[in-house]
Structure formats: structure tokens, C-alpha cells
């Protein structure tokens, strides 16, 4: 079959402007987009840049967007795309820096970020020879996180990275989460401490884009939330976030619902004068518009006592 491709092109360098190249190529009926790219590079345009390794959809190197949809070029079949007629658009994954053409800068948005999270096991028992007995349910959770093939799609979908590229990102966080379930690791607390620093796990907005983008049902967003819950349980969390959480929980325990004004104040910290001062302009405007909930004078909802009991019980159980 004959297929027409419109491929994103960009020369290396920050100032080069992206463009498109179109190619028409004759392919076998079961050809993949990768087959097409290889043929184009071989016969028509040797300058075309793209990545690939395993050719069978499991190494994650060739992630691209084909007609806007995320795909591995090595498993994306051309026939159904060509059947629609018109040009098949091939682009690098979005939101990520591009080195050349379809070659994304994996170092910048993936490898370096993973490297920064202490992503290795520090075994409790490095020299033991005996076969340990471990509940396979725990190992299954580790296997789930390790089925990740670093395709980069979760980072692509992340709503934080385009605004703050220094955020460590869902791929790195998901990989780090795999140690949570592993009883053999002794560095979990240390790793959580690394990850709770700025640009770490508390910068995630749990928007679920990562989970929606993940092609392997690893559910990165849920993994990150699990990790945060675990960190919180261990008391490993940055002070402002901790104050925020504690104030929130205390408010719901006290009254059944959220005292927003008090939350804002207690998150800053009652002795944090500069932090509290920063709140003043917004607070003043809000008061003027009649939309400032008065902190501390917060009515208790009926059933608050029952709700408090549940929360206390849940907290005690988790301890």
C-alpha cells in the first residue's frame, strides 16, 4: 500500500524553528509506522531523526504521536491510518523538549529526573543466602510499578511540568513508589524525605492526566497519592504541607467541614508573620466582597461528633 506521511522536523538547537516534511512511501500491508520511517530514512531522507530499539512495543523508546494519538511507532500499524486517506501526521510527544525531529530529550525530562530520586534498592539483607518468604501480593504491586517501560507519556500529560519543568514528574515518582511495597528495602524513609522536598511529590496536583496517559494501567497518579499518604503517615512531609493537612483534618474533626479561613492561617503557621502578611491583600479583598469565611467562628455541623469518631478510629487503625 501507499501511504503519505507528514513528519515533524526540527534541527538541533534552541532557536531552530520546527517544520514538516512530507513523504510518500510504498509499504507492505502489515507495515508499522516504524517500518515507514526506516524506509523513508533509508531511501528518501537520510537526515530524518527518530528513535527505536526493541521493534515490538515493550522498550518504550519510540513513543510518538500519530495523528494526535500516543503510540509506539513500532506497533502502530499503517494500514488503518492510510485507509482514511490523507496524510498521516507523526510528531514527537508533546510538552517535552525535542533534540531533533522525533527525538525527544529523554535526559532532560526522564532519565535525570529519575536519577534524582535515589531510585535503587538499599537491601536490608544484602548477604543473606536463604530464600526469603515474601507475600506475593506485595511483589505484585512492585511488579506493577516495574512494568513501566519509560515511555514518557505520563510526563507528557502532566499539567505541572509545562508550568514548572523542575517538577520531578510522574514517571520518576511512580518508579520511586515501587519501593513502598518492598519489605526488602531499607531506604524508604530516606527516599520519601528526598521526594518530599520542593519539586517533589507534593508538587503533584493529582489531576489524573498521568493515569489517563499511561498505556500500561500502572495508574501513576494513584501511585503518587499512595506515596504521599505513606509519607504523611510516617510524618515525612514538608512543614507547610503538614500544617495544611493537620489543620484540614482537625477542622473536619471539630466541625464536620472545612474552616477555610483557619486553614489558610494555620497552613502558614501562627508565628509565621511574613507568611501571614502575604495573605492580607487577598483576605482584604475577600472581606470587602463579603466572601471571607470568618476563621475560628465556624459553625459545627450536626453529626460532627460522629464524624470525629470515625476519623479518630481511622487514624488509630493506621498507626
Amino acid at each position, binding site marked *: 500500500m501507499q501511504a503519505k506521511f507528514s513528519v515533524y522536523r526540527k534541527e538541533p538547537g534552541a532557536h531552530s524553528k520546527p517544520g514538516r516534511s512530507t513523504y510518500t512511501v510504498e509499504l507492505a500491508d502489515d507495515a508499522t509506522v516504524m517500518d515507514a520511517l526506516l524506509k523513508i530514512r533509508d531511501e528518501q531522507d*537520510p537526515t530524518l531523526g527518530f528513535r527505536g530499539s526493541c521493534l515490538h512495543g515493550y522498550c518504550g523508546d519510540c513513543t510518538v504521536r500519530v495523528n494526535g494519538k500516543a503510540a509506539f511507532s513500532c506497533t502502530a500499524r499503517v494500514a488503518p491510518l492510510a485507509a482514511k486517506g490523507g496524510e498521516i501526521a507523526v510528531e514527537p510527544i508533546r510538552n517535552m523538549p525535542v533534540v531533533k525531529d522525533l527525538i525527544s530529550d529523554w535526559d532532560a525530562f526522564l532519565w535525570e529526573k529519575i536519577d534524582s530520586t535515589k531510585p535503587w534498592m538499599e537491601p536490608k539483607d544484602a548477604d543473606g543466602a536463604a530464600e526469603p518468604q515474601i507475600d506475593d501480593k506485595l511483589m505484585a504491586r512492585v511488579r506493577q510499578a516495574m512494568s513501566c517501560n519509560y515511555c514518557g507519556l505520563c510526563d507528557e500529560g502532566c499539567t505541572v511540568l509545562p508550568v514548572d519543568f523542575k517538577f520531578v514528574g510522574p514517571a520518576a515518582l511512580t518508579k520511586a513508589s515501587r519501593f513502598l511495597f518492598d519489605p526488602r528495602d531499607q531506604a524508604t524513609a530516606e527516599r520519601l524525605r528526598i521526594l518530599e522536598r520542593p519539586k517533589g511529590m507534593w508538587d503533584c496536583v493529582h489531576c489524573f492526566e498521568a493515569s489517563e496517559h499511561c498505556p500500561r494501567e500502572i495508574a501513576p497518579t494513584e501511585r503518587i497519592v499512595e506515596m504521599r499518604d505513606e509519607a504523611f503517615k510516617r510524618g515525612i512531609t514538608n512543614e507547610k504541607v503538614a500544617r495544611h493537612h493537620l489543620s484540614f483534618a482537625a477542622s473536619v474533626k471539630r466541625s464536620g467541614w472545612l474552616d477555610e479561613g483557619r486553614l489558610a492561617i494555620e497552613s502558614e503557621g501562627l508565628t509565621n508573620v511574613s507568611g501571614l502578611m502575604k495573605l492580607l491583600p487577598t483576605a482584604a479583598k475577600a472581606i470587602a466582597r463579603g466572601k471571607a469565611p470568618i476563621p475560628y467562628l465556624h459553625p459545627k455541623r450536626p453529626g460532627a461528633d460522629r464524624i470525629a469518631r470515625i476519623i479518630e478510629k481511622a487514624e488509630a487503625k493506621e498507626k
Partner: protein
Amino acid sequence: MVVGGGAAGLRAAIAAKQAGAKVALLSKVHPLRTNTALAQGGINAPLGADDSPEAYAGDILAAGDGLCDPAVVQSFALAAADAVMWLERMGTPFNRGADGRFDRRRFGSNSRARSLYVDDRTGHVVMQVLYEQFQRAGIPLFADWFVTSLVIDSARCVGVTALGLRSGTMDGFAARAVILATGGFTRMYLPSTVSMGTTGDGQNLAYQAGVPLMNLEMVQFHPLVYPGGNALMISEAVLAEGGQIVAGGQPIANLAGATRDKICMAIQQAARDGAAVALDLTMIGGQRLRARFPQTVELLRTVAGLDATKDSIPIRPVAHRPVGGIETTIAGQTPMHGLFACGECACNGLNGAGRLAGNILTEAVVFGARAGEAAAAYAKAASAPSFPAERLEEEKKRLEALVSTDKCEDTAGHIHAELGALMDRNAGAIRDAAGLQAARDRIHALKERYARLRVRNQSAIYNYDLVAYLELGSMLNLAEALVVAAAARKESRGAHRRSDFPARDDRTGISHTVVTMVQGAPQADTRAVVAL
């Protein structure tokens, strides 16, 4: 310096670092993109109560069909358990049974279930664990760097020249010891199960430097490969769990516990008899299939458009892994000073004429570690390498001369396609003298065409046109050496099957085939099998 970031290379680098050496690793793809992930089904270790290093050694010797070096086999069988337990300690989440202990699969001709596994992603996960420990050891990584030559000074390997794909610049790396861990070469066959970069670059580097390549004719064909698209391999673990090979709708008999090559032969025979051969996994049951072989089910769906829980899967044997490679000692030392090799690119006498199913990852970690330790010890005792200054300039000029925008109708891809079809046909699972000779002649012609090729991409950064050209050169050299080796072995043994010599000949066949480059051409010789 370790060349190649797969399982063996990573393990070697870690071991060398732990032995006190200053190590760096150079890989043409990132370690997490290597062919290691192809090893899906499991990793052997004699850990079961019903198992022992002796039983394990026995199975290896049987699969090696008379060519194994017994001392190497014994040493390996004794080291395997610890090597695999190390992986476990470092975080590999092996599947476990209800009692919390390792679950095991029984592959191929293993007499017991001894393959530990991680779903159907064993290689993918082991690769991650090794990479993590590599990072933990703080070893510098040069990913997306392509080694273009070994640098040899006074018969000693003193380093490499390499092209940084990201920067587009060439650099020289001086090293007291170089460990080649570049993986297999079966991309010279089309179809093949392996990654795009499995082109035998390490073997070619050694070969061109005069280092012998051993038992090249022994190439394992994987029996369960869906031939469409880019050939999708299905782990033999499915046979261990109930999957069946059917010819013309009927299960092929006597395949339980058969070696890989025996299964390939049976399929090849059935196909020659005109039957449609397929893999039937439906009796494993949908739920179990999805739970135990998630990646297999997923890839069959995306690559082949097949539902493994309902459809039968057309299969044929496809070139998979080499058994032979760069000749080394048990410690990974090649005959050249300062040059070591481990993993799939090396041949140290363990596998003889055929590799026991499930051994590839075990080999990588056992001999990867050994090579790392040996190289570190060598480097400690060796003098500082004298890297000839002009070598880098020479190499730069050599590569520059390859680039030309002159019009050329021929392409690397066309030559590769012809080479691949030729090898599949003439040096496939079953060979004969006429076919091998025709292959040799044809390869000669392809090499002439290759000599006239030019690299047309002039830009420096990520010049994969140049990489493809260099890889093709590796494959052509190795293909030529392989057919020479195959022609020299006039018998059938292990993975090497000849229709004109269908029997095993223990009078003349118990010797290794060794191919050395002499005046630019492969010369075959024999090497005695070391008796116990």
C-alpha cells in the same frame, strides 16, 4: 571501560567498580532500552529442593550436545544460585507462590522447574534492577555513544574510539581494560526476534582486531514466533503452562521437555509437509493468560491483532540468539591483552552447541560479574595504557570519508534486507553445503555493494544513517564468518542442523569451530573441547 549497557555489561561494570576499578559504561542505546528486555520467560537457578548444581550442570551438558567445557559448566552451575539470589536481594520482584517462596517454571529441556520469573517480563525487570544498582554504584554512563573501533597498541587493547550521537563528536577513551558486552548478532537474519541494534558490533570489533570467534554456526532459533510485522516472539513459558503447538489443527507430539532446536526442527518439518503451524494458548484460559502473560497478550493484540484467549497464533522458527561469539576464558578474557567479553557476545565454553533454555540471564549475571572482576584485577596490575594520539584523528577522517552526497541507488536498508532473507533461507534452522556456499558468494557480492555505499546524512547530531551503515558492516562481516563456520562443521549438533549431514559425528565433531580474520577474510579452524 564496558561497552554495552545490557544485563551483562551492567553487571560487569558493577563488579568492576566493587573490585576497586574506575569504570565507565558506554552504550549505543540507553540501558533501559536494550535487548535484555527480550528475555521474558525466566532466569535459571538451581534453588529448588528437588534441584542441585549437579542436576543443573547435567542439563546444561545435555543441551550443549557434546561441546561444553565441563569445568566451565561446573563452575557456572555452582555460582548460579548466588548470582540470582543477588538479583533478588537487589529488588527483583520474582513471582512467588502462596507460601511466599519462589515460583518456578520449567523451560525446554530443563529436567526440573528451575526458572524464576517475573510475570512475562523477567528481562525487563532484571534490566531495571541491574540499572538501579549501576546507578547506586555511581558509575558514569555514556548512553547514545557508538563505539567505532578498538584501539590497539603493541597487541594490547588500550581503549576505544566512539561517536557521541547526541553531540555528534568523536572521542577517544583510554582504558587499561575494555569489556565488550554488546549482545547478539541475529539482526543479520530477517525476520529475527531481536532489537534493531542487535547487530554484533562487539564481535565485529574483536574479529577485525584478529580475535577468534567461536562456534558462530550455533544459532538458536526461537520456535514460537509470529512472523508478521517485525516478528513477535512468544515466550516458551507458555508451553510450560499448557500452550500447544498444532500443525494442521493437531498438536505436534513429543514436544514436552524438548530442546529448543528439536522444537524448531519439528515445526520446520511440519511446515515442509505443508501443514499450517500455529500456537494454541486458548486452553490456558483467558484469566490465567492475562494474569501470567500480560505483556504477551497485549503485544499479540497490538502487533498481530490477535486475541490470544481465542485465536490460534501462526508461528515459525525465527533467528533468536547466538550461542557462539568472541572466544574467552571462563573469566571473560579474550586472547588479546586488555580485551574482555561477556554476555551474549562472548563464548566461553559454557553452552557448547546449544544453550539450555532459561540460561541467558543467568549467564549474563554470572559471567558479567566474573568479567568485571577479572578486568578490574587486570587493570590493577597493568601499566597505564598508551593511547596513540593519532588514532582518534585517523578514525575521525575514516568516518568523514564515508559521507558523500553523491547519488547512489543502492541503500544500506536494501543490502540489509537481502542479507536478512539470504541468512534466513541459507543459514537458517536447517542448512546444506550448496546453500552455505551460495550464501558465501552472495555475501561477498553484498560486501562489494557495501564498499560502494556512502553515508548521505551530513549532519552530525543523531546521525542514525551513519549508525545503520556501521551496523550493516558488522553484520556483513559476521554473516560471512558464520557461513564459513557452518560449512566447516559437516555434521548436525546442537543448534546447527544440516540436511546433508543429519547425524551427529562424534569422530570428527567434538571440537569448537573457530573463525579468525586472516587478510580480511574468515578462516575456519578447530579448537579442542577441554575435557574434564
